[in-house]
Every structure is written in structure tokens, then in C-alpha cells.
């Protein structure tokens, strides 16, 4: 195996162990995300989950994925394991991965763009389970049609999501990042 690849593999598998401090921090991460999500539930598609997942990933690194798993499980237990829950299974961990890729970036505008893009593309990414549901109902063509229709119908909501995500990150990135750095 190539040495670079070996190193990357080693890097990926290392650092997953959880210390008591991590458990406390991950618990706090889940609590903060849940509280903020509930507090803003009355405003459809305006949420702080994206913001906190990005911020906690910058703070905790890849261990933030534990917090995301916890959050997704709680969401399922509270609201039921419906189609959107399947989407949550990959969409939030994907945000952790995206954040890890760009974690060296410190620009508020850059993270606002990532956060905004995530909001704008949330519907498109979330339509994937409908390909399978539609396919079971009437073949692959129907699957793609179902997912496409679902995505198109939700575009106005994706706009709200994307704009809100962009603004929230632009406003809150600097103060929260500063506090988190102080804690580190």
C-alpha cells in the first residue's frame, strides 16, 4: 500500500477513543442542539442545528459525529422514525465530514457559504430516500420522478433554509468561535 494512503488510514482510525471529558462535551453538544432546535421549531426551516454541528465539529473534530448520532437518535425517539429520519442518518454526518475537510478555514464568510449551501441543498439531499420509495411503488423511473417532485415542491423552503443558515453563521461564527477557542 502507498505510504500516504497508509498514513491517511491510520489517521482515520486513530483518535476515536472517548475520554470522560469528551462524553461531557458531546452530551453538552446534543443538549445545546436539541434546545436550540426546539426553541426555533415555530419558524419552519430556520434552525441552529447546521450552525452547531459545524461549530462543534470545528471544536471537537471527528468526535462530533458521536454527538450527531445522539441528536439523530433523540429526534427519532421524539418525533418517530419516519422518512425524514432516514435522511437525517446521512445528512448530518455528511455535514461533519464536509466541515472536517475545510476545518482549517477561519473565515466567517466561508462558513456562512458552507452553511448556506447546506440549507439550499437540503431538499435535494433529502429527496434521496424517495427514489427508493417511488421505485418500490412503480419502478426506477417512478422513483426518480417521486424524488424530483418532492424536491421541486420544497424549493421555496430550501430558499428560506439557505438564507437563514447563511445569516446565522455570518452573525454567530465569530463570537462562538472565540468562546470555543478560549475553552480549548
Amino acid at each position, binding site marked *: 500500500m502507498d505510504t500516504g494512503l497508509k498514513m491517511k488510514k491510520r489517521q482515520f482510525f486513530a483518535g476515536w477513543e472517548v475520554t470522560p471529558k469528551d462524553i461531557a462535551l458531546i452530551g453538552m453538544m446534543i443538549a445545546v442542539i436539541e434546545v436550540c432546535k426546539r426553541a426555533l421549531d415555530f419558524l419552519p426551516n430556520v434552525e441552529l442545528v447546521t450552525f452547531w454541528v459545524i461549530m462543534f465539529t470545528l471544536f471537537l473534530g471527528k468526535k462530533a459525529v458521536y454527538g450527531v448520532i445522539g441528536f439523530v437518535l433523540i429526534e427519532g425517539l421524539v418525533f418517530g422514525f419516519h422518512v425524514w429520519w432516514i435522511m437525517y442518518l446521512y445528512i448530518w454526518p455528511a455535514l461533519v465530514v464536509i466541515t472536517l475537510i475545510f476545518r482549517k*478555514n477561519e473565515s466567517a464568510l*466561508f462558513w456562512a*457559504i458552507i452553511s448556506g449551501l447546506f440549507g439550499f441543498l437540503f431538499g435535494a439531499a433529502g429527496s434521496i430516500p424517495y427514489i427508493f420509495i417511488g421505485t418500490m411503488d412503480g419502478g426506477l423511473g417512478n422513483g426518480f420522478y417521486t424524488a424530483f417532485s418532492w424536491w*421541486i415542491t420544497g*424549493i421555496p423552503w430550501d430558499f428560506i433554509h439557505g438564507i437563514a443558515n447563511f445569516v446565522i453563521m455570518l452573525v454567530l461564527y465569530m463570537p462562538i468561535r472565540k468562546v470555543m477557542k478560549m475553552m480549548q
Partner: protein
Amino acid sequence: METKKTSNKKVVLGLIALVAVIAVLGIAYAVFGPKTTEGAKAITIEVIDNEQKSEVYELNTDAEYLRQALEEAKAVGLTVTGTESEYGLTIITVNGVTADFNVDSAYWSITVNGEYGMLGADSQPVTDGDEFQLVYTVY
């Protein structure tokens, strides 16, 4: 310095991506999104008056029953008035032409797709492609 440059490049690329995504979403919604300006059912209402003169009104409507469609057709120039009874609207005057059964044994009959209508305007369902006629009829 080098890092700063790379960071700026990423921001610019990100902004371009953001604008592109917004454009794609906007175009996709404009082309494939639901069109809500028109009613889902296309119908025609033809009026044949006491001089056998015909006037046809085309209408896109979401009306469930003919009564509502007749009211919506005001927008395209059709005026229908009448009296209320336990069976709903009894049509008396259409486009200013009055059919009074007590005076000259005349009434406005309704035909639905060429068939004599069995229901009043309030209970006559409207389906896509329906052709209604309001005919001045003498008994």
C-alpha cells in the same frame, strides 16, 4: 500569506457555488414548480338566449359545482342572477335576458355535455372538459 490567499480563493469559489446553486434552484422551480394561477379544470359555458344567439365562455376553474363556476365566469363577462330556493339557485336572468315561467312559460335549462341536466346549478358537479349550456327554453 499563502494560506490567506488560498482561503480567499476558497471564499470566492464558495460564493460562485452558492450563486450557481441559487440559480439552479430558481430555474428548476420556475420551470417545474406548481402553477397555481389557473384553475385545474377547463370548461366551457355556452349561453343560448331567446333569439337563439349563442355566446361561449371558456373558464379555468377549481369549482366543484356549477354555481361557483357561474360566479367565477363573471370575470369573463357572463352574468347570471336568480332566486334562492331549497334546491339552490333558480336561474332567472342570464346576460340581462329574463326567463320568467309565470309570465311566458320560459326557463333557463342547463345541459351538460349535450345532455339535458338533471341537477340544479348548486348540485351539478364540474369536471375537467365539461361543456355546459344555459338555454332559454319555452315550455
